[in-house]
């Protein structure tokens, strides 16, 4: 039989976490990510791990802070409204420089919104996850296979940079089923001399803390953190380029929107329009250099999103507004069709994006 299994995106997130050595999960059920918790509730006891359904999302993220402080790989997951509740904890994780993995399988908002897919937490994930100056590494899977591989990679990046990695998925990729290879390779172990593991009276005790009593010191913590971020922007940016090298019209899309865009690009090429796709895999750091390069030959860009237009701001920033950027979007749980994306590509091609 094949080495692959047929998994839901949410199940792939959960199994990949186990393969990455995560043995602690804290969460609270919410559609459309509930299968992550349901799957781990079955699997964690089988392998001596901890599955705990917390009394709330806020409790769960604070349990994550606890395990991360002890130097162990730890994860929580939720969907948009639940992620809002975790925001305070995300800021504390950053302030404490703790590695953790947080999954957001987005649904329509704001407020309670709906249970159909969305990408309207882009701003939250890339800019406003909580108070204070900080970033999370934000990874955007576009297939069930990537749900697995980016969780595996996300744990590694989190440990490497002592940061929170957020998997910014959407309800479609969470719920859909596809064949997955779970061959993830070796887990890389990182020394964590800062972890609170007990001194046995042999060393000075460690303190994991985000409170500073001195403004001079707090300023230095922030500056050091941003030096690390600058390094990450240089070395960890990931994106996929599809027929974009010679493209007149460059479509930018991630997650499920990228899958739809791909079909539209193939249709555009059949009509003789040179369209291509740049699919950010890391939303932070955003693939600015790739877009800037594409602006040299592209006459216009199209941002395809399941939001009222959030990533489009990063596209415009990346190319310094040197080309028009059109928005193709559906919201509230709706997904753009390939025909809608194609129409926007044709509009961009005809007018050069000029309004």
């Amino acid at each position: 039989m094949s080495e692959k299994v047929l998994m839901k995106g949410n199940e792939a997130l959960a199994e990949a976490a186990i393969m990455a050595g995560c043995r602690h999960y804290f969460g609270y059920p919410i559609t459309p990510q509930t299968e992550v918790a349901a799957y781990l509730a079955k699997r964690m006891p089988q392998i001596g791990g901890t599955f705990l359904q917390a009394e709330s999302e806020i409790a769960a993220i604070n349990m994550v802070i606890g395990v991360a402080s002890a130097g162990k790989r730890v994860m929580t997951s939720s969907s948009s409204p639940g992620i809002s509740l975790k925001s305070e904890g995300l800021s504390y994780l950053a302030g404490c420089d703790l590695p953790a993995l947080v999954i957001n399988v987005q649904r329509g908002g704001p407020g309670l919104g709906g249970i159909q897919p969305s990408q309207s937490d882009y701003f939250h994930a890339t800019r406003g996850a909580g108070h204070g100056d900080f970033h999370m590494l934000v990874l955007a899977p576009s297939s069930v296979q990537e749900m697995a591989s980016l969780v595996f990679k996300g744990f590694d990046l989190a440990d490497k940079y002592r940061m929170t990695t957020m998997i910014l998925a959407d309800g479609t990729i969470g719920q859909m089923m596809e064949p997955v290879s779970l061959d993830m390779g070796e887990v890389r172990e990182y020394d964590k001399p800062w972890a609170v593991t007990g001194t046995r009276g042999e060393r000075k005790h460690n303190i994991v803390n985000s409170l500073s009593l001195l403004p001079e010191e707090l300023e230095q913590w922030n500056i050091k953190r941003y030096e690390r971020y600058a390094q990450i922007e240089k070395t960890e940016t990931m994106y996929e380029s599809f027929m974009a090298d010679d493209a007149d019209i460059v479509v930018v899309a991630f997650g499920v929107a990228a899958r739809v865009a791909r079909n539209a690009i193939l249709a555009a090429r059949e009509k003789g329009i040179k369209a291509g796709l740049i699919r950010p895999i890391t939303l932070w750091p955003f693939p600015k250099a790739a877009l800037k390069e594409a602006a040299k030959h592209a006459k216009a860009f199209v941002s395809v999103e399941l939001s009222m237009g959030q990533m489009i701001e990063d596209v415009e920033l990346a190319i310094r507004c040197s080309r028009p950027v059109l928005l193709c979007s559906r919201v509230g749980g709706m997904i753009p069709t390939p025909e809608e994306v194609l129409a926007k590509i044709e509009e961009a091609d005809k007018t050069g994006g000029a309004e």
Partner: protein
Amino acid sequence: MKRVTLFAGHYGSGKTNLAVNCALALAGQGKKTLIADLDIVNPYFRTRDSQAELEKAGVRIIVSPYANSNVDVPALPDEMYRVVDDKSYHAVIDVGGDDRGALALGRLAPALKEENDFDMLLVVNFFRPLTQTPESVMQVIREIETASSMTFTGIVNNTNLGSQTRAEDILSGAQKAKELSRLARLPLLANCVREDLIPSVRDQMENAQPIRLHFRADWAVF
């Protein structure tokens, strides 16, 4: 063919697709058919996705008005008792996944057992991560039978890897299904095979049942 056919099994094993296939086949034979969706677990991927096709074929659909909506509540359809009250119909029941999904069946179990004209079919896909062996499926069987207070009468093997399914996957799945049939002492009634793969496996296996996928989307191919 019994008057009532129930499809139950592990979460994501293909129950809804098979139930829809079954209802369409019955209606195609000119039988007065209904399909009842008793899923109380999953708000997505419901029989309602095939509503137009089912209605066109003359199948009556019994499904919670909240299925496929934003109202994420474990609701049963108010018309569900038609399954046991109106015996003029051939009824196909799509049961929710796992033991939690099968719990809702308990309400119909006394009437179904009294009438004793049903088949309860276990749907299995050996490519699902938690049911890769006959032994792990035995556990699912026990859990569902306990939750529903019903016992299975047969097995439908639905082993597949979606669009990547190859002939050899079908054949090795059929081997595992045979072993499961022996362990569970239940007849293996069908091995589901996507229509286009039928010619390459037909001579090497028994009970090959051609099947057509009823759900697709613009983002499915990547």
